[in-house]
């Protein structure tokens, strides 16, 4: 049941995409997201899709894995599609009662859904191919300038890497607790909403207890090693921009230019 959640999951591998500098990957992902919102018509979306497909193939991430992230979003996607179809003014194709479906509505809905799907795929590709530690390293390094205005960048990065690190642990823990309560006959799948909500208590209480216990243990362990707030800390793995990273940046620039040109011509 929880195996469906792939958020923040990392698929270890040793492909060119896996080896890229995380900073480059983060910047490219941000660029990809911005471009998705700038894209206008089939050509620009096609170009972005091509970029995504090429990256996924290079990273050896299959279509099935990549699309596994859609499941929890189905409702959002359907609502978006329906609202866009019904509420976009324009040339009506079909109308009945007060509702009319317009040509513009259908095309807006289509592109909106495509945009959401590509958005999910792209960001998931980042987390699939970048370990949480490298990801936060990259973020910390990118956010470094903010230190000048007293933003606690290192602390934020540390909190984030701890949070990311514990997602799989907590999922595993939840799975174990669910199994243990099922073994005592707990039933999570039948009954009305109130019964089902009540059925969550035997999962949530142990989960919170163990999360607090883990947090406590982690804090003690950090204290024991005299952890302090990152003043003059050095890194074990220093991020270096390599030749492949420059190539990736070049691809990013081409993608940017291509999309902007297509957008200019309304394609």
């Amino acid at each position: 049941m929880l195996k469906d959640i792939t958020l923040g999951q990392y698929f270890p591998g040793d492909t060119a995409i896996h080896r890229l500098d995380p900073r480059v990957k983060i910047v490219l992902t941000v660029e990809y997201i911005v471009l998705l919102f700038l894209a206008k018509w089939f050509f620009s979306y096609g170009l972005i899709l091509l970029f995504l497909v090429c990256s996924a193939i290079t990273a050896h991430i299959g279509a099935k894995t990549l699309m596994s992230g859609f499941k929890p979003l189905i409702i959002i996607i359907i609502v978006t599609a329906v609202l866009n179809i019904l509420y976009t003014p324009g040339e009506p194709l079909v109308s009945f009662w007060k509702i009319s479906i317009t040509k513009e509505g259908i095309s807006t809905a289509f592109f909106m859904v495509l945009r959401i799907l590509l958005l999910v795929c792209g960001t998931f590709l980042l987390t699939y191919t970048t370990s949480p530690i490298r990801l936060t390293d990259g973020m910390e390094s990118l956010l470094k300038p903010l230190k000048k205005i007293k933003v606690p960048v290192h602390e934020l990065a540390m909190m984030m890497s701890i949070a990311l690190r514990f997602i799989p642990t907590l999922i595993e823990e939840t799975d174990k607790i669910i199994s243990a309560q099922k073994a005592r006959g707990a039933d999570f799948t039948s009954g009305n909403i109130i019964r089902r909500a009540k059925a969550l208590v035997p999962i949530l209480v142990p989960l919170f207890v163990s999360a607090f216990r883990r947090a406590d243990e982690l804090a003690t362990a950090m204290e024991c090693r005299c952890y302090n707030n990152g003043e003059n800390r050095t890194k074990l793995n220093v991020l270096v921009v390599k030749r492949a990273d420059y190539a990736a940046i070049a691809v990013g620039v081409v993608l940017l230019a291509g999309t902007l040109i297509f957008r200019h011509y309304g394609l």
Partner: protein
Amino acid sequence: MSPIIETQKLTHIYSKGTPFEHLALDGVDFSVDPGEFVAVIGQTGSGKSTLIQHLNGLLQPDSGKVLFNGQDIWSSKAFNNSIRFKVGLVFQYPEYQLFEETVFKDISFGPRNMGLSPSEIEERVYEAAGFVGLTEDQLAKSPFDLSGGGKRRAAIAGVIAMRPEVLILDEPTAGLDPMGSRNLMENIRAYHRENNAAVILVTHNMEEAARQANRLTVLSGGKIVMDGTPEKVFDNMEALEKMRLDTPEITQVFSCLRRMGFDVPQSVYTVEQAKSVLLDGKWGLGNA
């Protein structure tokens, strides 16, 4: 005697179709007779936990069957639901599943799910508490106020309260002190004896397996590689060592003695046995 629980060519694959695909069980034929005490041993990752989660229907086999009293547990939904109460499974570190306000309420969670009457539930809770040695005082406490060992007992009582015909325990004594471990195993033995329940003990503590079980099943790489009485299994020391499993220390001592040229029997696996062998043997150590 027909087995109470049995698996036939049980195969299970985790994360099928992803890069993490892993064959955890490979055609396992495992069976337990009513009233038997079996220990399942094997190193980490040998498939022990996967096997036991099939026995009460938490996991569904990818191929093969699990039979309870000769009936496939996946044959109907109603039967599958009732299996959890007949085959009680105590997970590793079961104290992490406690959640109720009082120990009493927590132990009654299983019986409540069975739909029993309040008086029946109460009777079972007291009976289960008796088996694991929890006092009335402790039943009224919050489970989070108990000691580590007390929590463990409460959690095990939560499964025993369902009066399962097969009781499965995954490393029940992990992390307990020797005294606590011994007491707990005594409690489990008592349940085994008084209800004539089959017990399946998963462990990698060879001493414990040798002392408790009438039969040992050794799992390695998702397959059953050895199955038989403790004498028979521990006789095969080299094979066990190849699987990175130990024999009990006393068996190792005797094997050492044999290598040194003493004509002592090989299949000695408890200290009590060793004592009687040495005292009664032709060594005359008893008289010395």
